């Protein structure tokens, strides 16, 4: 830590009603380094960055940029003073073009008021060329796949030529190749002398890319160390405040007979061309593949959330149709969706309502009237079983951290007593401690005789939890491997089969 600090945050405090999100947190970023910010869900990482970026106003503390004290009142302030940020949640004007999004808030002008489309086009091309991004600048944002949108977002943050760039979980929707691409960009920025703050729950990434690591727990600063001096286990220990010997629980489930047989299902409006597979009782079937390979679509097709073009689904030897989620739920399916905020939570409703919504029929008395007591008890059960951190059942779910929200939704599905669980990125944005709990839960469920299909972009997770792994490529099943014997290389080769 020889060079003077580029960014110095000291004693930052931030309180939300009922939550002390930040309690006297320090963070020092040196120029030309990548500083990883680690912590469990709800540790306060995003909040700290939002305080820096002017989205939240901190209650106390000082921020120094280049030795000068700053206090950004808005994002505009921050951007103009050399701080840029890739946000945890994608925030884009989807009805506008890529280039309109890229230059939003700082359109190049001629004659004081007119926006110059030509300068915009030229500059966009320049930026995309340097960053090797291959996206059509005139394309409407909503027509791009999520990963490309994320790359646009990254390009945008970089294009501000800021001294400090914050990446809040940038890789959660990127494929392996795009992650590599991102790392090249980050290395380039580092070489230019930028300070980079990098937030991620993916341990491998942290150790690969970061120079320093700051770890937070429960809104408090825990440690700042050079990355070289840290091991994965050490980070985890600091994050969760206790020893975690294994990242994956012991696999105890025993696959039994085939319960679900899926033959040649294809999507009507989506890219899923053909998926055929079987699922056994008590089995955990993983689905791997690159982004856009149609993994999500397999699950959503199966669940009736998308329209099927053809194919058959047989459950216990009986053909079923699952034309819509309601029917699927009746048939014993449950789907944990990929985008928590958009399709998972009911933000302004409380934990209780979020928990019981899919199992309402269980509380019906006489076919008309809902039993409140039973709903409360079941919610309590979910809170305890999932270790959900919440003041009460009556807290709005949106005030929980992402990981805790995820647990509520998992609880929602468990209450429907499903036979087949479809999990789409069940641990996206979830900290290691909680991840372990979720893995354990998945294995326990398999032990109870349920069939689990799990889509994940994290290869180690698939290898550590699943029995078999289905590999998707270009909307089709490219192959099927045994999780115990396969390697990452084999999966990657299959994933590239129909690209």
């Amino acid at each position, binding site marked *: 830590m020889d060079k003077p600090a580029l960014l110095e945050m000291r004693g930052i405090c931030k309180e*939300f*009603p009922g939550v002390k999100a930040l309690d006297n947190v320090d963070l020092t970023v040196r120029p030309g380094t990548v500083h990883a910010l680690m912590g469990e869900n709800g540790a306060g990482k995003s909040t700290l960055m939002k305080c820096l970026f002017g*989205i*939240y*106003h901190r209650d106390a503390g000082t921020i120094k940029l280049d030795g000068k004290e700053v206090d950004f009142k808005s994002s505009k302030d921050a951007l103009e003073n050399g701080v840029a940020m890739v946000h945890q949640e994608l925030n884009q004007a989807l009805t506008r073009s890529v280039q309109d999004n890229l230059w939003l808030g700082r359109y190049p002008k001629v004659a004081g008021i007119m926006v110059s489309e030509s300068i915009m086009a030229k500059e966009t091309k320049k930026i995309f060329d340097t960053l090797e991004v291959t996206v059509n600048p005139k394309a409407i944002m909503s027509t791009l796949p999520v990963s490309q949108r994320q790359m646009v977002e990254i390009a945008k943050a970089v294009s501000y030529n800021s001294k400090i760039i914050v990446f809040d979980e940038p890789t959660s929707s990127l494929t392996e190749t795009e992650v590599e691409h991102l790392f090249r960009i980050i290395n380039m920025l580092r070489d230019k002398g930028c300070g980079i703050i990098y937030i991620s729950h993916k341990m491998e990434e942290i150790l690969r890319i970061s120079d320093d690591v700051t770890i937070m727990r429960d809104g408090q600063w825990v440690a700042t160390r050079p990355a070289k001096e840290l091991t994965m286990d050490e980070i985890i220990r600091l994050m969760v405040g206790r020893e975690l010997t294994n990242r994956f629980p012991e696999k105890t489930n025993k696959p039994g007979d085939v319960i679900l047989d899926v033959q040649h299902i294809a999507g009507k409006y989506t890219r899923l061309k053909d998926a055929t597979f079987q699922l056994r009782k008590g089995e955990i079937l993983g689905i791997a593949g690159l982004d856009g390979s149609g993994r999500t679509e397999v699950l959503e097709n199966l*669940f009736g*959330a998308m329209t099927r073009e053809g194919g058959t689904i047989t459950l216990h030897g009986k053909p079923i149709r699952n034309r*819509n*989620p*309601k029917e*699927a*739920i009746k048939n014993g399916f449950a*789907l944990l*969706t990929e985008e928590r905020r*958009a*399709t*998972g*939570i*009911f*933000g*302004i*409703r409380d934990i209780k*309502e979020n928990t*019981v*919504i*899919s199992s*309402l*029929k269980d509380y*019906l008395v006489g076919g*008309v*009237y*809902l039993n409140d007591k039973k709903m409360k008890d079941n919610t309590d059960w979910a809170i305890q079983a999932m270790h959900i951190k919440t003041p009460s059942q009556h807290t709005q779910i949106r005030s929980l951290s992402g990981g805790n929200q995820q647990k509520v939704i998992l609880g*929602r599905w468990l209450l*429907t007593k499903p036979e087949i669980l479809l999990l789409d990125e069940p641990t996206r944005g979830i900290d290691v401690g909680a991840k372990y709990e979720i893995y354990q839960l998945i294995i326990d469920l398999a032990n109870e005789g349920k069939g689990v299909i799990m889509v994940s972009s994290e290869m180690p997770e698939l290898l550590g939890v699943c029995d078999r792994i289905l590999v998707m490529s270009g909307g089709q099943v490219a192959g099927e491997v045994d999780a115990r014997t396969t390697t990452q290389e084999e999966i990657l080769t299959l994933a590239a089969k129909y690209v």
Partner: protein
Amino acid sequence: MSNSTKELALKTKSITPKQVGNALLNNALIIIMLLVAAYVAVTQPSFLAPNSLINLLSLTAAYLPVALGIAGCIVLTGTDLSAGRAVGITACVAASLLQATDAANKMWPGIGTLPIPLVILIVVAIGAAIGAFNGFFVAKFKLHPFIVTLATQLILYTILLLYVQQGNNKGMAISGLSAEYRNFVVGNPPILSFGSIQIPNYVIYAVLLTILMWFIWNKTTFGKNMFALGANEEAARVSGVNVFATTIAVFALAGAMYGWAGFVESARIASNTANTGVNYELDAIAACVIGGVSFVGGIGKISGIVIGVIMLRLIFVALPLVGMDQNLQYAIKGGIILFACALDMRKYLVKK
């Protein structure tokens, strides 16, 4: 003993001025309402006379059904501009089917006077059909309810204009209602009366309706689904809520309420023209938002709606009593809407 004192001290201590302020603000509307009522009662003691209170109650009861219906649409982040015209149509239909046999200009001389329960069924069904039509377009084409109901309002107005020209009516008001009908709605004497204080029957019906709606909102699967849908449609869909059916049902239920409102208004006012019901939706929406049914969706309480309706009626009743210029009533209504909503939003605004 010393223990409990300590606890008490602790409790007392823990109530900070900020908390008191918050509590005051959160209940500001009720407080204002009580203050207004108190002021009026002092300047005009007759305001507290039983008859005057019954009058306030009756007015509230009359305007409550539309508000209860429209609230569901607001919970779905929607609105319903067609409510007024739906009340108009159902009022005219109810009136035309329940004219006394000897009414001048009897619209449909052929039918005599239909049985009241049948007419209730008919108008509630008409209302529900109008609502279902709205709901269908909202659910099927994902159109904003504002625009769907704006269109429906126009269509209903044409139907209304044409309907009042049917039969023997020729665009006149449909009147000469049968005595049983007015008796059923208003009561002469009413079912409930205490000495000289008579409570119109429609007040009783409104209370029953409120209980029914409370039950539907809070104790049924449909109610829970409605709130989930209002909070996050996509999430509701994958959670197994039949979004299409629920949307239609919410609008249809609202429509059924308008149908009932039309049935009551028709007998209560006895003036049924193409103008009947016009702008009822605006008062109803105002009452809902004053009562905390929020346009952000997924939020609202039946008790809030009742308070909202009382509040509006109170303004309406009390202002002229204390000699306020009637021209000002619109501005005061507008001011209270703004104030109530701004206050309400404090709760939902994400603190920065």
